[in-house]
């Protein structure tokens, strides 16, 4: 019997009140973005944001609760942009969106930071045992792709160094049931032919650092066949996350039919980039449709997730999407 788990990889939009207060506290310019050593007033503001995110998720009834990553001004590049060995360069486009982040230029050894672990500890206190925690990090392949290497000098070495850095961060995390590694670049900027194992080795380095369920979440369409097969076999993931909102979902089904899958899967079922809120029944039908297409008897666990982070949405719609995921899991039960 497949366990259905309603969860999200976090990166939520700031509540509207916090958009204003944080903007007033921090400013609008590039140099005003989060540096990791923010003032007490800013820390307090984010504590309130975090509490609201936890309440939102508990209210919705999600099966995993995330910290929400309200502090991540640079989206998934955050763990680098607040790192001491990183200088932030110009504002660059975030994937194919009208969103921008600061180019993290790595200029020295990436040693331990602990920034994300501190956030997760605060989230754990807030959740207070009411639901299991899910942690979120960028996957090493995407984080390397988003960054500029001015220190290591070799692409494979850079990916490996980022993986070691992320693994060190994970080891400091408080107890968590699931770790989401966000890897949109695997689809948008796939590894070159022959370089797939470099990417999957890097992911496995991070995955090996935790006993939790590791979900390697992809976005923006189907993975190439060869890369998909490498990921299933080598990345150390308990679940691959697949984007079923994207128009090429038939290719994703083909990959699973042809090359098998991880024991669990995460299905990107609700659109993280559209305000149209899916009906729970529609989401449930998508799960059943997908499961009927693939030969496996059943998966250990199917995660019901959005296909991207949710910060693209206005705050009211982000909450509605949480509810849709949770309600869909109930429909399936």
């Amino acid at each position, binding site marked *: 019997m497949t366990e259905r788990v309603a969860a999200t990889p976090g990166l939520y*939009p700031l509540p509207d009140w916090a*958009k204003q207060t944080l903007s007033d506290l921090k400013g*609008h310019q590039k140099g*005003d973005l989060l540096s990791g050593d923010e003032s007490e007033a800013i820390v307090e503001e984010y504590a309130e944001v975090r509490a609201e995110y936890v309440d939102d998720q508990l209210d919705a009834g999600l099966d995993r609760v995330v910290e929400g990553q309200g502090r991540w*001004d640079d989206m998934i590049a955050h763990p680098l942009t607040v790192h001491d060995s990183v200088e932030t360069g110009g504002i660059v486009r975030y994937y194919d969106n009208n969103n*921008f982040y600061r180019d993290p230029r790595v200029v020295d050894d990436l040693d331990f930071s602990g920034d994300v672990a501190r956030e997760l500890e605060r989230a754990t206190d807030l959740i207070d045992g009411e639901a299991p925690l899910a942690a979120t990090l960028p996957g090493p392949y995407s984080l390397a792709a988003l960054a500029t290497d001015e220190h290591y000098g070799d692409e494979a070495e850079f990916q490996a160094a980022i993986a070691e850095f992320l693994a060190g961060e994970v080891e400091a995390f408080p107890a968590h049931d699931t770790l989401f590694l966000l890897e949109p670049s695997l689809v948008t900027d796939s590894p070159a032919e022959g370089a797939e194992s470099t990417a999957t080795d890097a992911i496995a380095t991070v995955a090996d650092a935790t006993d939790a369920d590791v979900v390697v979440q992809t976005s923006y369409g189907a993975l190439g066949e060869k890369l998909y097969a490498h990921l299933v076999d080598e990345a150390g993931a308990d679940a691959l996350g697949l984007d079923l909102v994207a128009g090429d979902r038939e290719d994703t089904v083909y990959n699973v039919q042809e090359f098998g899958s991880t024991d669990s899967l995460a299905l990107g079922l609700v659109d993280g980039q*559209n305000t149209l809120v899916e009906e729970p029944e529609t989401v449930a039908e998508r799960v059943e449709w997908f499961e009927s297409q693939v030969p496996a008897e059943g998966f250990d666990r199917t995660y019901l997730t959005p296909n991207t982070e949710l910060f*693209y949405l206005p705050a009211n719609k982000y909450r509605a999407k949480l509810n849709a995921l949770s309600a869909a899991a109930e429909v399936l039960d």
Partner: protein
Amino acid sequence: MVRNPSANREQFRPHDHPNDAFLLTTVVGSYPKPKWLNRADELVDDPDSKFDAEDLEEAHDDACRLITHEHERAGLDTVVDGEMRRNEMVEFFADRIDGYEFNGPVKVWGHNYFDKPSVVEEVEYDEPWLVDEFEFTSDVSERPVKVPITGPYTLGFWAFNEAYPSTEELVYDLADLVNEEVEKLVEAGARYIQIDEPALATTPEDHAIVGEALERIVSGIDEEVRIGLHVCYGDYSRIYPEINDYPIDEFDVELCNGDFEQIPTFTDPEFEPDLALGVVDAHTAEVEPVEEIKENIRQGLRVVPPEKLTISPDCGLKLLPRDIAYGKTENMVTAVREVEAEIDAGEIDIDNPLDD
């Protein structure tokens, strides 16, 4: 294919124009709002204030009159009201088109947000969007008025699409609405329309969608009406020479910001519409000296002859301090008039415009 820019350009030459050569001067559209107008925009939402919607309309009228006259004083051949009535280039139109709704701001970067609307049903034309503002500006101006309109590609792709099977289909429906608006503006006397499509710069592979949308926009629009297209901050090698097929009179582009490095892109094959070239930077708070702007104008002559060259700032000037915006505009016009005189005197080699 390109419209017929030579059929509509001369109407913008002022009767007292001092030179034989005529480089049409214009602006992209937005201009810094007077501080009191920002205050007025906020005051109308304050329940404790007696300042009401009618007062705000008066304030908007005053600001439009002020900026239109400021443009005239700078010597521009064609003027805009500085978009004093508009808040944001997508929001303003989404507010006026049936089918859009607003759910709240979304992040662009850091703590910069945009009230990104959602299209929740088929878009429809209700009241005219810009006819009143055009008539007002036209009445207070002695110079011809240009009307900037956010283009359907940008109105479609910078919104959430809840209602259409594809955003491309939404764009074509929006293009039909823009066509309706342009018809009404022309009926009201407008002869210079600029379609703004900044979203094209972010997704140049969609240039064919923009082309099809433009075909719809200009359908039935007489050739005496000048249709411009403004795009900014892009890699133009990815949309050139395709833009030679667009049904436009003029292509307006920001190249000062990149030190004119992309000029060679437009020289082969031959550039077909008129070129409206940005010669002052919209994002630096220093007024460029006249001599420097004159050099920038010569860059445009590498692409088109003087009778096909329009001169403007790179982009809307709204983010600059107002005195800087004015200084840039005034120096730009001075530089243009001096370059025209030098062309008349044979002092500029049109075939090698960068030579002294």
